């Protein structure tokens, strides 16, 4: 028990460096910027006028904010579900395919290697109505009628942006699932095999509970990252057509930086932060209780 005591204090030494960096360079600026959400500051002027909760009141009555919120939720839910579904499927495939494991593992990860803005550039060209890859292929195989204005058609915009993000993100989460699958002790699996369990039973009873840790991480991450998507929207649609792809982050950016209303933009950002925190807390409570410690 003495060793435990020793660690009690040392634990905080272990945590200290991270704590300092984090507080100084993430939390402090955020709190600092939160102050501006109560002002009508334009971002440049030396005059900063305090206006209390006026920005927040405006948010609650703003149709534009409501639209951004709706878009954000749709996009995020889509991304979270499909990124994880694909990632797990890909991890299982790579784990079980007989030939070329290394190759496939790399292949599925390649989209993660391009930067967010470059992925936007590539897909913007591919989605192009006139010269884009998708429409050209459809035309060449005789399915010309199925050609769409993929990004310009209101009904499809969010979906197609989602596709890009799932494409780019699946490999990322696949890695985490893979690492988790690989650390499932083969002894346990062998023991189960000896006991006569079928592959499905083995998967359900052993693998699933032990990769639940990975599942928590991945779902958390994809949810949070989905809520913060920026680069692709910036490059592909600039929030358009109309306001179809304007998400909360994008609204923050547009209003806060481009429209000279940094006070209001910051308020939007703070609201977004609250939403993320709430969603995440709910999700954490739900998933963490299901994790298993060996």
């Amino acid at each position, binding site marked *: 028990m003495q060793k435990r005591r*020793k660690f009690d204090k040392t634990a905080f030494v272990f945590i200290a460096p991270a704590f300092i960096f984090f507080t100084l360079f993430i939390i402090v600026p*955020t709190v600092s910027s939160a102050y501006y959400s109560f002002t009508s500051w334009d971002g440049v002027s030396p005059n900063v006028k305090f206006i209390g909760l006026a920005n927040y009141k405006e948010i609650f009555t703003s149709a534009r904010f409501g639209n951004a919120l709706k878009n954000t939720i749709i996009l995020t839910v889509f991304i979270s579900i499909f990124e994880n579904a694909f990632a797990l499927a890909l991890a299982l495939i790579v784990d079980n395919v007989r030939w070329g494991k290394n190759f496939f593992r790399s292949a599925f990860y390649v989209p993660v290697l391009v*930067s967010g803005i470059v*992925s936007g550039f590539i897909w913007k*060209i*591919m989605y192009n109505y006139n010269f884009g890859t998708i429409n050209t292929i459809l035309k060449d195989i005789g399915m010309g009628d199925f050609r769409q204005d993929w990004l310009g058609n209101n009904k499809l915009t969010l979906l197609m942006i989602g596709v890009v993000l799932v494409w780019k993100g699946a490999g990322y989460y696949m890695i985490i699932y893979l690492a988790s699958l690989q650390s499932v002790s083969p002894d346990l699996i062998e023991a189960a095999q000896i006991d006569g369990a079928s592959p499905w039973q083995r998967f359900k009873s052993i693998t699933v509970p032990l990769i639940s840790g990975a599942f928590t991480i991945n779902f958390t991450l994809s949810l949070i990252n989905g809520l913060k998507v920026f680069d692709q929207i910036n490059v592909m649609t600039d929030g358009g057509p109309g306001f179809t792809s304007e998400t909360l982050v994008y609204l923050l950016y547009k209003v806060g930086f481009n429209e000279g209303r940094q006070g209001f933009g910051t308020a939007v*950002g703070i609201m977004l932060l609250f939403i993320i925190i709430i969603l995440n807390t709910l999700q954490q409570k739900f998933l963490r209780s299901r994790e298993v410690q060996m």
Partner: protein
Amino acid sequence: MSKEKVIRKPVEKIKPGQIVLFAVTILLAILFLYPVFFALISAFKSNGDILKNPIALPTSFYTQNFKDLFAQSDFATAIRHSIFLTVVSELLIVCIVPMAAYGIERRKSKTTSLIYTYFLAGMMIPFHLYMFPLFKEMKMFHIFGNMVGPIVCYISGSIAFGTLLYCSFLKGIPLEIEEAAQIDGCTPFQTFWKVTFPLLGPCTGSMVILNGLGIWNDYLMPYLALPSGKAKTITVEIASFVGQYTARWDIVFAGTVISIVPALIIFCMFQKYFVKGITAGAAKG
């Protein structure tokens, strides 16, 4: 017997299911690789060609884009900067983050739970929200306009994700090993670095790959915070060829190809960490 019997699995008969799986995997691989393949072939075409015939393969080995890339921007410096930022940041992150996660996970209490949530909250804060106050603060600490600033920010920004990852993986490390080490007389410090850390291999590998890539591909921070007048990083230089009215896609994709190659190589190198059996072997003690 000091050597364990190496059980060699006899070569199994190829089941039809395996062939189907293989075919499906190939199809998926093509789908996933195509857009990057598109960038690759575009790097060897002229700008007009890319827009006019996007799916055609390049007609010749056209290297003008690469020449233009290096001629019109100091791309070599940009590459150096990208490497420096990524490597130094990751080294420091690996020194700081796993330790913190260990402290949180191994000393379960209200305080550490609170700290865990505190760290996670950081992940939720969109960068655009605190960008400007952060720059002012960096200026105050004299780390704005040089390489130190972004590194410090990257470290701070990785704590949330890193903690999440390491804490989850630490659950998979049996406590018995550590207790054994402590009984043997190791300090907590030694226990962590000599015993636990090596076991976290796949986790470290994952984090470095995932996190390092984010740094390698980052745009906004290097664009705004690195010293003026010189080339910044690979991603920033690539994006500088997309202007308000015109864009040199040919150069953009040439730069993309250069950017992906080292990332891919590193990834392939780190793949070893995912080989089944390393952690299992260690767990046996």
